[in-house]
């Protein structure tokens, strides 16, 4: 395990280093392509041309990974910038259109990279972040990469719109390309100007080092890959018959890092789902690549359906890239996409938005094809593909954590004019709606019920049973209890109950099972007592059923330790259910061996009726009955004056309930009012009274901007109204 981890981290490091060359190459490549199209091919000469057509004859090649930009590209930019108006002309065209510039799409999102950049670009007079060219890998979203690219172009004073293309291209994240190094060197020598020429030597050195590193790396990784395969094969021997009906899912597919998302994607997916009744979403998506590659042409031909097309594509864009990248492993079908890409680029300048997105995808289409042309040795391809994925993840992680801004719409439930449902009406409403797929669920349940006798047997043989899978397992366990545990001593623990504690579980064992009266100093003592009793009396047997062993109250380390120790007793039989996705993390090796679990998958799909009824759901209106009763209880124990004081405050708060920016009643005003009502005679007495309120959490104070103390009752208005009514009755 450890080894694997180390390997991964090494890998990502190298990935970062690789970055630099690649971006450089990538930028060059796209620039060339671009300028070729613009008829500027003569400026670059044969090098560019040969580069563009893959130049398959070259034996040595760079294996380079595309990622974000680096000082190289910056220098390159400057070099070009200085070189003259030919390129600059384009920049002037495009720069104003870009609008307000955002510096450096990455803003140092990656620490590793920043550091590396500093090392390399120490010659640069300005701090590296500021002058960073936008990174290519801003991911699928429209924000970010493009902005950065434009920023860089403008920052150099000149620059070309091609840059933005380059960066767009980078959007596909890590890729592998073979670039004949002679071509690049020649290009550097011929075209890049004095500044770049200076950098030539270190660059080549670097390149060689990287290549070397890569070789060793690929060996290691191939090894690792093999080992991993071995392991998977060994453990997954029976993956097929284990999930005879399902797809076995790899770890990274299940829950990986956060990826940046656009705000309106959910609606799009919804409409997509809604539009294709009965049809699967996946089949829709599998057609995406074709659709996308066609987009530029279709928009060229028919401007009438452009809008619709665009919106449609937008949602493909937003949802697919990640999937696409995976799917595009088999590149053959997209070999021609490259030419398509260049054609569309030359003509679709005006529809910038669309095109950029197209290119994002296209570049990802293109790469594998190119790699194929260059006739990669297959092992290396595999390795790099893997690295691809890995640093893709790393990219996405930093991407997601680089900005704290969240782009969601500002709509609230209040604007929806939707009354909040309370628990009772919710329950009633749900009763009315029929349970979907009841027959199938019933079938599933019957399947699990046939396991009951086996469970009993295994419980008696010293194993404990844990149930997992989607859907409430409450009814299943209840059935188990009814059918198997009728004549036995058993204890049912509703773990989802919000006030359950280990102590209460232990108490019910000592008091009700062992008939022991008396208290214990700590749960540990209590546990020791229980263990002793069970060891002394071998005729004692206890079945413990725990619904939701992973609930909020029981998931703590200490509680789990105690429960584990309890379950390790030979005459205590534990059968429990877990639901939370991270539930298995509760147990370390020691606890697991105490529990001695046998895992059973019981996916029931039945709704979690009981389990969620206690949850303080966001959408459910709280009845507030608990708050009200505690309020009256506390108030009843206070003096008449104190109650009067509280009443005053409550009334004032209710009077201001329509004022959304009501800060609370200021202490001075409150004192004045209390004095007028003959409730207090000095501000000290009032303060003493308020301290008492605060101790009982009846009021909350907060200091305003002007330093004045404001008093608030932290109870919602309806409860407060109820309370006042009740008080009136009492009086």
């Amino acid at each position: 395990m450890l080894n694997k981890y180390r390997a991964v981290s090494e890998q990502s490091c190298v990935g970062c280093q690789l970055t630099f060359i690649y971006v450089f190459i990538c930028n060059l490549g796209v620039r060339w392509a671009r300028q070729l199209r613009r008829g500027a091919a003569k400026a670059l000469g044969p090098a560019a041309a040969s580069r563009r057509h893959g130049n398959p004859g070259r034996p040595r090649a760079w294996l380079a990974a595309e990622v974000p930009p680096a000082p190289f590209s910056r220098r390159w930019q400057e070099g070009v910038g200085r070189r003259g108006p030919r390129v600059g002309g384009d920049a002037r065209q495009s720069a104003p259109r870009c609008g307000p510039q955002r510096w450096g799409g990455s803003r140092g999102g990656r620490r590793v990279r920043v550091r590396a950049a500093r090392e390399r670009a120490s010659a640069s007079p300005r701090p590296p972040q500021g002058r960073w060219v936008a990174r290519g890998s801003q991911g699928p979203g429209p924000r970010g990469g493009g902005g950065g690219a434009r920023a860089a172009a403008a920052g150099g004073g000149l620059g070309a719109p091609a840059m933005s293309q380059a960066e767009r291209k980078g959007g596909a994240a890590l890729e592998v390309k073979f670039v004949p190094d002679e071509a690049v060197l020649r290009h550097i020598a011929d075209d890049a100007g004095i500044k770049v020429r200076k950098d030539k030597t270190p660059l080549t050195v670097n390149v060689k080092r990287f290549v070397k590193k890569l070789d060793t790396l690929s060996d290691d990784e191939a090894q690792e890959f093999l080992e991993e395969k071995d392991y998977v094969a060994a453990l997954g021997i029976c993956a097929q018959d284990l999930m005879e009906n399902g797809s076995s899912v790899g770890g990274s597919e299940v829950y990986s890092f956060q990826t940046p998302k656009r705000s309106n994607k959910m609606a799009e997916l919804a409409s997509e789902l809604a539009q294709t009744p009965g049809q699967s979403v996946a089949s829709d998506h599998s057609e995406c690549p074709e659709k996308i590659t066609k987009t530029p042409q279709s928009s060229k031909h028919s401007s009438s359906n452009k809008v619709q097309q665009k919106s449609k594509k937008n949602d493909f864009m937003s949802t697919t890239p990640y999937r696409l990248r995976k799917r595009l492993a088999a590149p053959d079908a997209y070999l021609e996409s490259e030419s398509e890409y260049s054609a569309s680029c030359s003509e679709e300048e005006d529809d910038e938005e669309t095109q950029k997105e197209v290119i994002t995808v296209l570049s990802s289409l293109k790469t594998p094809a190119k790699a194929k042309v260059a006739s990669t040795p297959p092992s290396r391809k595999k390795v790099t593909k893997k690295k691809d994925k890995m640093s893709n993840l790393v990219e996405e992680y930093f991407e997601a954590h680089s900005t704290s801004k969240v782009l969601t719409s500002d709509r609230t439930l209040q604007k929806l004019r939707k009354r909040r449902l309370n628990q009772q009406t919710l329950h009633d409403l749900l009763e009315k709606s029929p349970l979907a797929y009841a027959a199938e669920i019933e079938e599933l349940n019957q399947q699990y019920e046939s396991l009951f006798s086996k469970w009993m047997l295994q419980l008696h043989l010293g194993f404990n049973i844990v149930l997992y899978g989607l859907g409430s397992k409450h009814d299943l366990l209840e059935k188990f209890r009814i059918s198997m545990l009728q004549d036995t001593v058993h204890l049912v623990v509703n773990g989802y109950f919000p006030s359950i504690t280990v102590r209460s579980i232990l108490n019910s064992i000592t008091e009700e099972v062992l008939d022991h009266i008396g208290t214990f100093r700590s749960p540990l003592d209590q546990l020791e007592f229980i263990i002793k009793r069970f060891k002394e009396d071998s005729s004692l047997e206890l079945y413990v059923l725990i619904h939701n062993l992973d609930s909020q109250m029981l998931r703590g380390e200490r509680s789990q330790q105690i429960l584990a120790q309890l379950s390790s007793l030979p005459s205590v039989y534990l059968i429990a259910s877990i639901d939370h996705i991270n539930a298995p993390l509760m147990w370390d090796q020691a606890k697991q061996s105490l529990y001695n679990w046998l895992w059973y998958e019981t996916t029931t799909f039945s709704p979690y009726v009981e389990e969620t009824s206690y949850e303080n759901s966001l959408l459910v209106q709280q009845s507030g009955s608990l708050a009200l009763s505690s309020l009256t209880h506390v108030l009843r124990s206070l003096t008449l004056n104190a109650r009067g004081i509280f009443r005053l405050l409550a009334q004032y708060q209710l009077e201001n309930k329509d004022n959304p920016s009501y800060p609370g009643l200021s202490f001075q005003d409150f004192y004045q009012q209390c004095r007028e009502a003959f409730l207090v005679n000095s501000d000290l007495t009032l303060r003493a009274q308020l301290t008492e309120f605060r101790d009982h959490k009846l009021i909350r104070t907060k200091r305003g901007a002007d330093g004045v103390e404001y008093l608030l009752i932290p109870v919602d208005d309806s409860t407060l109204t109820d309370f006042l009514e009740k008080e009136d009755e009492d009086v």
Partner: protein
Amino acid sequence: AHLSPCSIFWYEDRPEGQKTQIEEDLNKQLFDNLVSFLRRSHSEFQEKTTEWNCQMKSREIPTAALVLGVNVTDHDLTFRSLSEVLQNRVTPYVALLQAKDCPGIKNLMQKLLGQLMNCYVDQNMYKICRKKSAMSLWSIITLYTCDSIFLFYYFETPSKKRTSSRHWQSPPVVVIFKDMESFTTKVLQDFIVISSQHIHELPLVLVFGIATSPMIIHGLLPHSVSSLLCIELFQSLSCKEHLSTIIDKVLLTTQFPLKLSEKVLQVLINIFLYHDFSVQNFIKGFQLCIVEHFYTQPLSVLCCHQEEVKKRINSLSHNQCENIRRLPSFRRYVENQPSEKQIALLTTDGFLKETVQQLLDDLNVYHENYFPVLRCLHVFTSSLPKYPLGKQIRELHCACLENRVWETEEYESFLQLARMLNKCDLVTMLQKCVEILVSSPGKEFDKTVEKLKEFLTQFQKLEGGCALSYVPLQIKLKLFYNGTNGYHFLWYILTLLELKESRRSKKLTKFEMLRFEVVDYIDSVVRNYLVPADHKTLHEIVYFNTASVLREHLNAAPRVALHTALNNPYCYLKSQALRSDGGSISNKAPDICIVYKLHLECGRLINLVDWLEAFSTVVTAVEGPNADAPSSDQVDDVIHARFIRAVSELELLGFIKPSKQKTDHVARLTWGGC
């Protein structure tokens, strides 16, 4: 037709019990070794007590550092038996301390006192009852000193001396720290410093249980404290060796009727190697295999010891006979019989029973022969460079079970390498093989043993013959590169050269001819006896081979299950409406799946209103256009309720949590999956 499996199991429970019992005995044997080590160390310390003066001067506490390895779960048993043995043989004063019980020195002292006083409760109960209050008072008064212990010690020893003769004159007080790494540094330091001050009055011995490396003592304790300890290191058997012993003694014998198939064994070994290194868990897995086998295989009645088989076969019912006829391996067997015999087998129960008896005997004989030959083969393979068929015998076993081992490439390379063995090695290997075969219970080996002995005498005759030409060189080299990999490498090259040479000359020496003969003979033995078990008739009765069950119950993947259920409900709910080609969901999926699918499209925060609207769009579209009209801008109450339910279910499952960053937003807790 199906027998009630439970009853069979209970019927079969006894052998199962025996098995676990023997496993425990095995463990005990290992632990005993370990404990005897310890005991010796303690006795050494004990000897030193006679010259206690020198210890007193230096104030060093004798300490045993017990390196146990990372398989923490196994330690419990080790320590339990250790303290048991110590109590039986060395001293009544043994205290076992765990880090989680001792957050402070106070708790540590309390635990220590409690355990020491419990030591002899049964012997002089009365005294203890009288003194208990006094002692606890003491412990309160002198919480931070060791006084109470040694006071108690001296108070009690005289009586002890009188009562017990099996202990030494002044038995030491042994304090065992089960998990030394998890103790707080301060507690340990305090305890050591305090007890070192009383070491001249109190023969205290510490035992540290260490999971990582002995260096941790110096990492945890400053020099001033660790210099108070006189540490001696003890290494326990590594968990891998432990496992090998268990496999050797339990799985590779004919003693136990139940056998594991290759896949099952592979899964168990992989769980061991990749997950926990815990022998306990391995045994647990093996127990599960036993339970599953006897529970699910109705014919497992016949999986019992040789003596009982006959009785049980005779008591087979007609249904059970039918079950036997249905076994694939039996069917294969029937098909190869002459037709009249086929009819008899399929119709007459009596004849079937006779045949089954015969077949089971065959199977038993096969096992009796299989294991010795396997061991012999292992003798050869384990000494060859690069271990062509695996270093451990379990790997070889798996290879043999998987398919015909002589058809594999590895076996080819094994033969090739074996043909290059030098005389010394070959002779020692043959001698080992003879030993193994002689000591085995198999009856068919007389001939083989004779043959091997003949080879050995022939080799002896060769002595001084032409074989000397290069053997001495190799021996010299062997001495030179003793046991290193370099040697292996060189050996390899040399033998290759030799091979080339001999090919060139095309003239085989006598030694070479004999060597070829030996290797060919071994090859024939292997082909004869190491047939994979699946080729044997009725192997289903004895072999447990549903590895998937094992994996499912021991190495479950709850997250994957959840993921599959949410993404592809059709896996579980076999409804045509849910069927989809791409393994993705359709819009008729259960609410929670739709809500889940929608939430995947969001970033860190999710707007509930958007979510609700998206959900209602999907749901109303499914329900048809007529439902669309009234709820064009207002969401239907029922849909609203369904949405609330689905969202709170997702919250329960841990996919989202309420967020206060923005009104009516929830935070997403998982990523990817789309």
